[in-house]
């Protein structure tokens, strides 16, 4: 295994996360405009908050990147003075950690859609745990709680799993991922051609 992330890896990961931090703030305004509607319509789009981790990992394909990305995205929001302030930071750590564990379980060797979806689900589980600790949802009536969970899981799978996967596919087509991915030994071997 390589020894830790290099400066380039860290900076690129953080910048990807900050880009999503900007998206999150816009997303936050959509989220809070549908939230008072009740019935957890808002939960359908909650999953967008988990996207930074999977995207960063799928782009860079290196250990530790998903966790770092979620923390960075959350702190980006924090420094921009988001009223959610410290809450996002705590959530970010937990969500990132859960996603990271999924990628680790596959030894950082799988980059397909299933892994992305699993990581999204893991982040979602992390956020639900945080919500219980936060005391926001434990006391909801059962039908309401179920509705809440289903909506959030569906949203997570769609945004942080499927959408993240396709987004990185397109990024690959732009050629930018070559800059930051580990170089294959095939490329080194090609140096010895005639």
């Amino acid at each position, binding site marked *: 295994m390589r020894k830790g992330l290099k400066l*380039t890896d860290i900076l690129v990961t953080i910048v990807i996360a900050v880009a999503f931090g900007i998206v999150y703030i816009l997303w936050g305004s959509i989220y809070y405009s549908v939230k008072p509607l009740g019935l957890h319509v808002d939960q359908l789009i909650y999953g967008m908050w988990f996207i930074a981790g999977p995207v960063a990992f799928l782009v860079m394909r290196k250990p530790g990147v998903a966790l770092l990305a979620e923390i960075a995205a959350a702190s980006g929001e924090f420094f921009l003075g988001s009223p959610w302030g410290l809450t996002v930071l705590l959530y970010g750590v937990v969500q990132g950690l859960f996603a990271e564990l999924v990628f680790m379980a596959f030894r950082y060797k799988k980059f397909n859609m299933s892994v992305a979806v699993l990581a999204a689900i893991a982040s979602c589980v992390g956020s639900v745990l945080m919500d219980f600790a936060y005391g926001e949802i434990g006391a909801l009536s059962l039908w309401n709680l179920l509705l809440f969970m289903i909506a959030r899981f569906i949203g997570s799978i769609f945004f942080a799993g499927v959408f993240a996967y396709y987004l990185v596919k397109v990024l690959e087509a*732009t*050629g930018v991922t070559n800059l930051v991915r580990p170089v*294959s030994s095939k490329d080194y071997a090609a*140096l010895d051609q005639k």
Partner: protein
Amino acid sequence: MERIAFVEKLRLKFPGDESLIFKDLSVSFDKGEKVLLLGPSGCGKSTLLQVLSGLIPHSIEVPMKAKELESPSSWGYVFQDPDSQFCMPFADEEIAFVLENLSVPKQQMNERIHNHIRQVGLHLDDIHTSIDTLSGGMKQRLAIASVLALEPEVIFLDEPTAMLDPVGTKEIWDVLKEIGKDKTVIIVEHKIDHVLEFIERIVLFNDNGQIIADGPKDIILSLYKNKMKEHGIWFPGVWDEYIHDHAPIREQREFNDGGPIMQMQGFRGFRKKEEKIMVEELQIHSGEWIVIRGENGAGKSTLLHALMQFIKTNGYYELMGTSIKKVKNLTDNMTFVFQNPEFQFVANSVYEEIAYSLRIDKKPPQEIEERVHALLEVFHLTAHRDKHPFQLSMGQKRRLSVAASIVKEKKIILLDEPTFGQDSKNTFALLEWFEEYRKRGITVIMVTHDDHISKNFATRIWTVKDGKVISDEKISKQLAFLETEVLSL
């Protein structure tokens, strides 16, 4: 002479590319030399600088090997994009970052920061100035100052003025000549007017990353002028030669039309509620080529943005006889080509990018195929039709962004610095296409710093100063070189 940096039999390949960019390249540099590396874009000159400095493979992982390689023991590197070489928000902090890297004690930092800032002629009231408030030229001075903090023997310059206007370019070269006097300087640059008097030696590359000539500058310049022209290098006098070869471009400048297509009166544009641009009265006709000139920050781009309604405006503004408030789809008549082409790409292939606007209008497939095909031909993109737009070279991206903007034959085309950072070949090709469209009655409005364009292609020149259009100069038919009709506003 003492060798200070060299490489022998260098092989290098970018991940994912088919072929090697360098195959057994050898070159060496002596202490105190000032050398210019010249060649077509994409030939690997910048990559060579990175190898010589050791950035490849230390910081950038690229497969490479060399029989022998020696990097200078102390060196500094100035990059082309002022916005992507700083990591700190304030000028003093950026230089302090370098000093910290060198473990300079805190007590000495303040004095050294002041010294370096003075050396590059960066006049700041307070060294704790936000980098965001500096102009492009000042940012590059700061970049040079932080290189000086390294006290380098060798300075690598990777197109340090590519993103600067002519004034900034000259200033930066004046600074570089001063500080580079007693150092080894290795330069990659396309705009070589100011560089030539500074250097002694030129190394010339071809498309395949091979050195085709290496020697004293006068000999290389005289022997390989045609090669340079072919490569699109901005050697001195390239415009004069172009005009000489295309003498009749100034004929038939006027295009007769039926009345103005755009009118403004007391027209103002606002950013963050502040008035940033004001037009007292202007009328625009079809077939005009208007160049908007002015200093950095005068409001040229803002004027384009106001015309496109990207920003809030008030006052009278009429487009094709309809008040702007009643115009539903402004973009049916008018299009805008952004300075950075990537921002306007929406599709996954060159072909689809051009076809995109036609598909929105649900044009029949037959027609789409024909129109796109024709444009691919005109803009020399046919060979790349299936590539992702982001994978193109800088020049190709620019051509694609123009092609995709004009596919629907808009009446008015607005361009923000369309020739910026382009080589001479691409610049002339673009200008000829714009002229072609203008002749067909399309109005071209462009912001540019290039006086050659205003002199040789424009039919009309607006000058913007401090957020106001202060002059409107119409260049009359055929006598363009001799007579201009000045309407002061």
